């Protein structure tokens, strides 16, 4: 994979950040800010998937297991133990990290790779969904409702723009981690593991350790996504936060935008949020946006395996060549 993110790095990062900061002031309608929140939310959880699935090549079909663990950890701590919901963010990161560590440890110790790893994550998500669905403590199938109590210190904003800047900050952190992975030793080791595990081992990389580490990191981020989700919608239930749909969305956003790239999930997320908003406004047909997305996934895997970001990169290179 050619990568020119270092040469165009900082100007690109800063101009994108400036655009993102200006967005809710330029498009200040509730509809557009909501669109921004959802796009950034998908970008954030997509990036968390991308860190394990893209950078390290550990494809997961059940990433929602971390998302749900984070959502339930923070919501239960808030409702049952009166913890401040802002502390839910670090708590959910810890919950996601623990679940990521356990699943990574068990699966990688058993030597599961590729499709087998993808399927076992799906099964773990099912187990947690069923458990949470069956236990009184977690509210069972009815889910948990967070009572509305507007106030910034209570993680509830009267204007959506407050949520926008929270999720923007989280996304910036996740992008920074992705940039770090591109340039750090840890990231290089993950890339080696992704390309050829045996060769990576021969080079002296502790494959098992690095893979568990990346699951912890990815799980922590995804867990925070769950906590944000709970605060934004003030409601969670097992089917929503442990369901297959969210896992698939994270994977789609990342694969379609470009797995293993810094800005791939962002592109995929804007597209996913955009397509679902446009189809909802124009037609009343259920399922249309995912029909488009499923088709796009097949086409991308077949013809553009590095994702849509490749189109941008090619465009950038062509412009550069013209300039010379």
């Amino acid at each position, binding site marked *: 994979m050619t990568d020119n993110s270092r040469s165009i790095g900082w100007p690109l990062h800063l101009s994108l950040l400036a655009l993102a900061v200006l967005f809710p002031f330029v498009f200040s309608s509730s509809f557009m800010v909501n669109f921004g929140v959802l796009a950034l939310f998908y970008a954030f959880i997509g990036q968390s998937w991308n860190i394990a699935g893209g950078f390290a090549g550990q*494809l997961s*079909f059940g990433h929602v297991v971390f998302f749900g663990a984070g959502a339930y950890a923070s919501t239960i701590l808030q409702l049952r133990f009166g913890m401040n919901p802002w502390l839910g963010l670090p708590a959910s990161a810890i919950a996601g990290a623990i679940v990521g560590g356990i699943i990574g440890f*068990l*699966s990688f110790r*058993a*030597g*599961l790779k*590729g*499709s*087998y790893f*993808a*399927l*076992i994550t*799906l*099964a*773990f998500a*099912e*187990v947690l969904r*069923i*458990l949470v*669905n*069956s236990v009184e403590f977690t509210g*069972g*199938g009815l889910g948990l409702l967070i009572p509305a109590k507007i106030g910034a210190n209570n993680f509830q904003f009267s204007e959506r723009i407050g949520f926008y800047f929270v999720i923007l900050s989280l996304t910036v952190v996740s992008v920074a981690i992705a940039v770090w992975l591109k340039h750090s030793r840890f990231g290089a080791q993950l890339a080696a593991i992704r390309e050829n595990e045996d060769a990576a081992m021969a080079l002296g990389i502790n494959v098992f350790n690095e893979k568990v580490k990346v699951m912890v990191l990815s799980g922590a981020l995804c867990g925070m996504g769950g906590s944000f989700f709970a605060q934004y919608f003030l409601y969670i239930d097992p089917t929503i936060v442990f369901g*297959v749909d969210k896992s*698939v969305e994270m*994977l*789609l956003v990342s*694969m379609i935008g470009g797995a293993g790239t810094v800005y791939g999930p962002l592109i995929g997320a804007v597209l996913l949020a955009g397509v679902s908003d446009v189809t909802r406004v124009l037609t009343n*047909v*259920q*399922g*249309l946006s*995912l*029909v488009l*997305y*499923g*088709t796009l*996934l*097949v086409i991308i*895997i*077949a013809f553009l*395996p590095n994702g849509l970001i490749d189109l941008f990169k090619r465009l950038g290179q062509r412009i550069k060549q013209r300039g010379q």
Partner: protein
Amino acid sequence: MDLTILGAAAINGLLIGGIYTLVASGLTLIYGVLHIINFAHGSMLMLAMFGVYYLLVKLGIDPYLSLLIMVPVMYFFGFWLYKLLIGRLAQGKDENILLITLGLSILIENLALMFFKGDTRTISVSYSDVMVEVGPTLVSLPKIISFGAAMVLCALLGLFIQRTDTGRAIRAVAKERVGARLVGINVDRIFAISYGIGLATLGAAACLLMPIFYVSPTTGHIFVMVAFTVVVLGGMGSFLGAVVGGLIVGLTESFGGLFLGESLGQIGISLIFILILLFRPSGLFGAKR
């Protein structure tokens, strides 16, 4: 606990397990020959079930009679789907084909949602409510017919693979594709045929399931996990494994529901899946990986 209740749970579990076996035999055939994991298996089954539903509702064709239609239709659908799409895109890593079949399943499920809407549908036929005494309990007639038919179809599939020339060619390709090609077998054709047969078993399973189950665009989800569990438990690519695995999974589901309640009872299948993959990835009858 009362023995009658246990007996009834065992019988019900075995009966549904027979159909799981049929669904899983298609999955295990596709894996054994093509070495691809067909994640679209559940959504293809759902599609076939809608086919059976509309054949009855629109044309008045009995679901069991629909076997004569659905099996060949699904076979040709699978054959051409492989030839035109999956076979061409299946190059390279196994993750890619998993993602392509995932994309297909998203596509099929949401197309179903667009055209059929999200409602859950059931059918009723004249013999739906006929009860038969089996040992300690009463069982609905369609369940027994479906189980019997599933077992017969599995046996026929096994005979086909063992006895016919095409079956021999399928086994040859499964074992050693290069060698098969060297002795003049058209390997790509065998791939398409295997995928077709894999989907044909779903056509059959749909006809047997419809009188005793329901269908909605997300019905496939239920069977994806079940089918993968059966296949992993029995051993990827093993027919005998699919039969034993199907019955065990059916029993697990039935006893799980009995002892743990409706909600928690579903946990057994996913737990089996996880434990087998972690501790005995070759399954009960599979070759060592």
